[in-house]
């Protein structure tokens, strides 16, 4: 099956065509945004980290920033640093350059302050954006697509209707040679035995189970019980009682395909070994989506029972609900109603096809409601202290 998009230097294909203004740290986020605001087609991300982080937190932030820049929905990158931050612009630049796409960098300290940095950044961004805009769309095979699977503000209809619908669409993409990513380690607790059984590779299975154990151990070691926050008050009001019940509904997004491998948060998904992957992430939606986009997902399908508006800076996010009441209540935000399975008796395979058709249209350029409303939420998974 063919879809259309933008061919990048490394042979990957994007379905959107952004110039990314990438702040190396929180200290340059505001300046990066002001540069992006000056240029049509440019977008920045509100990086809240990038300094005084160590260990896994440092690696998570670097992987996320580099991953966003390398995502094929981005045509070129301007890195904006302060100059003295923990994540140096040259570290980011070297890693982003591997993709072959144009990447340049400035620092506020070197330019001599905000006004000069904005002037220089805008000048560079203008030149980069002109080239990005010249890119013509080409046809490519849908096997080049990476789909991120998300659910948030879940209720019992998520497990009954919207997540199984996503599972049908994900299975179809995987059967056509593409890739999907399931994330949210917290929200596999209680369903991990079912997911683990679907890993063909023993080492990958063990790594997956270790990721789940790490979340449980981290929660226990902190003296808190993660169940104080999971399920959320809204999940409970909707009718979900325990983390197990929530997880057993969440996992339906991954359909019935076997799992090919596991990814660290924001780790680049292998291009030579496609299929269904699990990525380690928190259950918090924005951090989870951000990680999957950093891993290479060009598109996200996001199911919600309670209703949620959120999007992503560089990837279209399709909203689907299994709750017809929620669909009608938040029709500004939700693209597709899988509640028809419950209220109108629409079959799951038919609903899956309807979602897949919408995915193809969105890949080909149709904006999602989150895109049309300008929702560009971004957040990097943070594990420990910032020093």
């Amino acid at each position, binding site marked *: 099956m063919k879809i259309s998009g933008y061919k990048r230097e490394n042979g990957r294909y994007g379905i959107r065509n952004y110039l990314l203004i990438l702040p190396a740290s929180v200290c340059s986020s505001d300046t990066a945004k002001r540069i992006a605001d000056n240029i049509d087609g440019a977008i920045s991300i509100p990086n809240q980290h990038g300094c005084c982080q160590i260990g896994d937190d440092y690696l998570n932030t670097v992987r996320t920033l580099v991953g966003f820049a390398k995502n094929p929905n981005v045509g070129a990158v301007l890195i904006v640093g302060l100059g003295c931050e923990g994540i140096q612009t040259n570290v980011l630049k070297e890693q982003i350059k591997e993709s072959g796409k144009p990447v340049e960098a400035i620092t506020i300290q070197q330019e001599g302050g905000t006004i000069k940095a904005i002037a220089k950044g805008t000048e560079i961004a203008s030149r980069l954006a002109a080239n990005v805009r010249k890119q013509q769309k080409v046809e490519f095979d849908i096997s080049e697509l990476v789909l991120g699977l998300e659910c948030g503000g879940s209720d*019992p209809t998520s497990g009954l209707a919207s997540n199984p619908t996503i599972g049908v669409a994900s299975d179809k993409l995987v059967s056509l040679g593409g890739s999907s990513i399931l994330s949210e380690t917290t929200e596999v607790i209680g369903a991990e035995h079912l997911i683990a059984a679907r890993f063909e590779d023993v080492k990958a299975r063990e790594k997956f189970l270790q990721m789940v154990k790490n979340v449980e151990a981290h929660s226990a070691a902190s003296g808190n019980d993660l169940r104080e926050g999971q399920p959320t008050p809204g999940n*409970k009001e909707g009718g979900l009682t325990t983390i197990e019940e929530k997880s057993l509904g969440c996992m339906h997004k991954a359909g019935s395909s076997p799992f090919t491998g596991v990814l660290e948060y924001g780790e680049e998904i292998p291009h030579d070994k496609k299929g269904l992957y699990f990525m380690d992430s928190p259950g918090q939606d924005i951090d989870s989506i951000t990680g999957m986009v950093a891993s290479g997902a060009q598109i996200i399908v996001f199911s919600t029972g309670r209703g949620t508006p959120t999007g992503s800076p560089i990837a279209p996010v399709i909203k689907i609900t299994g709750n017809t*009441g929620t669909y009608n209540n938040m029709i500004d935000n939700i693209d597709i109603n899988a509640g028809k399975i419950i209220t109108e008796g629409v079959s799951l395979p038919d609903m899956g096809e309807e979602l897949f058709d919408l995915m193809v249209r969105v890949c080909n350029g149709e904006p999602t409601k989150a895109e049309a409303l300008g929702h560009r939420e971004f957040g990097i998974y943070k594990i420990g202290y910032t020093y």
Partner: protein
Amino acid sequence: METVLRIDPKDNLVTCLRAVKSGEEITVDGEKIKVRGDVPQFHKIAIEDIPKGGICYKYGQVIGKASVDIKKGDYVHVHNLVSAKDFN
């Protein structure tokens, strides 16, 4: 549309597809069960007695254990069902 959905034959909890009033009768696999308590849409009802500590099933899987004795027909939620996971 059915009133309740039993996802798996192993399940001792069913999901209400509409709000159900206390005293209403629901039918599960031919058996009539009188509902004890108002149950909001998409919330759960026990279809058999589950003693305190007993395992509660949905999707044919463990979703927790009874924190008090649950009677057939009871509304089941955070007041009588808790996670069965032991993280220690």
